[in-house]
């Protein structure tokens, strides 16, 4: 039987304003976790009932730990930020499908926007061949160094121009004009849609990791759906981000 695991917090720190890195111990989750999957964190705090979905950022099979990186955007993530090292968190996972990683593909374009960047770390760790990473942020960049450590070439754009070029990730793509066989992306929906369009123009297959508000987080409530094509934009169906996603082919999505 699957279960909600009690995971000890091994490390927890603020890595940028209102952005936290948390490392939790969980052999059970680690042993089957894939890049692009997520976990659900149960705060079980009186007025907050629903679990919070957070992407798996970095898997350490040896230590049996997962790294999660999250932004404090509301009550739940604020509560999460108050947990201390040594405390125990209720975590369910891994959930969802992951990024499709094919060994035949040699040139990878990885695109992250803001707090959508973390799951791309584990992805880049697992990709073989040439990896170019394009990141867009409002202001502060995160994880740039970590991508470089993993051997990727990293390009950054910030909206205020404080780091990298001034603009968004699409501006960056148009400026660098990279070449590749597969795009992997995670970030705000508007960005993913633009990435999908850009990929389509270039003729590069695109994977997008979507977000949606969730209740069960395991595929039972049909709360977290996104529109996907059966045949075309008109003949579509609703699919579950938590179970059928979060990673979809860009071409499947009805934006």
């Amino acid at each position, binding site marked *: *039987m*699957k*279960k*909600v695991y009690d995971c000890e917090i091994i490390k927890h720190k603020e890595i940028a304003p209102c952005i936290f890195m948390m490392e939790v111990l969980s052999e059970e989750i680690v042993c089957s976790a894939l890049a692009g999957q997520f976990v659900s964190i*149960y705060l*079980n705090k*009186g*007025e*907050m*009932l*629903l*679990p919070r979905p957070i992407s798996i950022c970095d898997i350490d099979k040896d230590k049996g730990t997962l790294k999660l990186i999250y932004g404090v955007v509301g009550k739940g993530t604020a509560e999460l930020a108050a947990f201390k090292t040594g405390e125990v968190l209720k975590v*369910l996972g891994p959930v969802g499908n992951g990024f499709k990683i094919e060994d035949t593909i040699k040139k990878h374009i990885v695109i992250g926007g803001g707090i959508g960047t973390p799951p791309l770390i584990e992805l880049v760790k697992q990709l073989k061949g040439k990896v170019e990473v394009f990141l867009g942020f409002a202001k502060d960049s995160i994880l740039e160094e970590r991508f470089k450590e993993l051997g990727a070439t990293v390009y950054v754009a910030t909206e205020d121009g404080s780091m990298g070029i001034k603009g968004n990730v699409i501006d960056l793509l148009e400026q660098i004009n990279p070449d590749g066989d597969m795009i992997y992306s995670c970030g705000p929906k508007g960005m993913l849609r633009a990435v999908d369009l850009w990929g389509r123009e270039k003729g590069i297959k695109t994977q997008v990791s979507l977000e*949606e*508000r*969730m*209740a*069960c*987080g*395991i*595929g*039972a*409530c*049909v*709360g*977290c*759906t*996104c*529109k996907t094509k059966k045949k075309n934009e008109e003949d579509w*169906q*609703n699919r579950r981000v938590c*179970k059928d996603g979060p990673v979809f082919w860009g071409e499947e999505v009805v934006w």
Partner: protein
Amino acid sequence: MKKVNMKINIAGVELENPVMTASGTFGSGKEYGEYIDLSELGAVVVKGVASTPWKGNPSPRIAETYGGMLNSVGLQNPGIKEFIKEDIPFLKQYDTKIIVNIAGRTVEEYCEVVEALGDTDIDLLELNISCPNVKEGGVCFGTDPFMVEEVTKEVKKVAKQPLIVKLTPNVTDIVPIAKAAVKGGADALSLINTLLGMKIDIHRRKPVLANRMGGFSGPAIKPVAVRMVHQVAEAVDVPIIGMGGIMTGEDAIEFILAGATGVAVGTANFADPTATIKVIEGIENYLLEYGFENIEELRGNLLG
């Protein structure tokens, strides 16, 4: 070995224990079946199923509220054909009862689903009369006693399995609605469905739900649910399945003392995938602690 008798009887169907899943919160059990043994449940009440596939509402469909949540899933379902092909055989692997929640926008649609289920090996039907009635211009069937009686009567005519009618709480007085369902032939009642609620995202200045309003569930609504179950239990003689915010065995006991025969666990599954099992254990513990041998002794058993 269990020391207490948890069996209940709903319209001739015997359930091993009074705890079921609330429709729409548990799919057809496949996903939660990875976290709990479905054979432990009194019954699995599946998500609402209609005569044809429904796409449901646009996303976001979920909003969290203080002690509760809103959903505007809009009864997305694959239609009765697919349901019979896929979900019934899956559930038949388990030693539990199957209750099918029926959705429809017209009396005809309800009847189609019920007829299609006539030859299947399911145990009970649960008619969800909170769907908007397209013929009446989108008014909900469940808010008008006359319509409640009519739709119940028509569905009952074609039903091969006993019929539970599920009531909406969004009414001035639940009692005439409950009586109308019983008059129409309901073998049991279940309540409450979700309250109608809304949440606004003040930062985006938009309703959180794409559909603006949604069904409000979870522990926040329990006092309304307990009140309605109590009112209905005093007014009708058929068994009642109580639900609305049940998180623990104690919550379930509250409904049983209010007059419910069975209870259903909905939103709590989202907060803890093993919630149903914990509710069963909690009820057993209460019975043991207070020296009851039989769950039936507890129903409506308020003192003084």
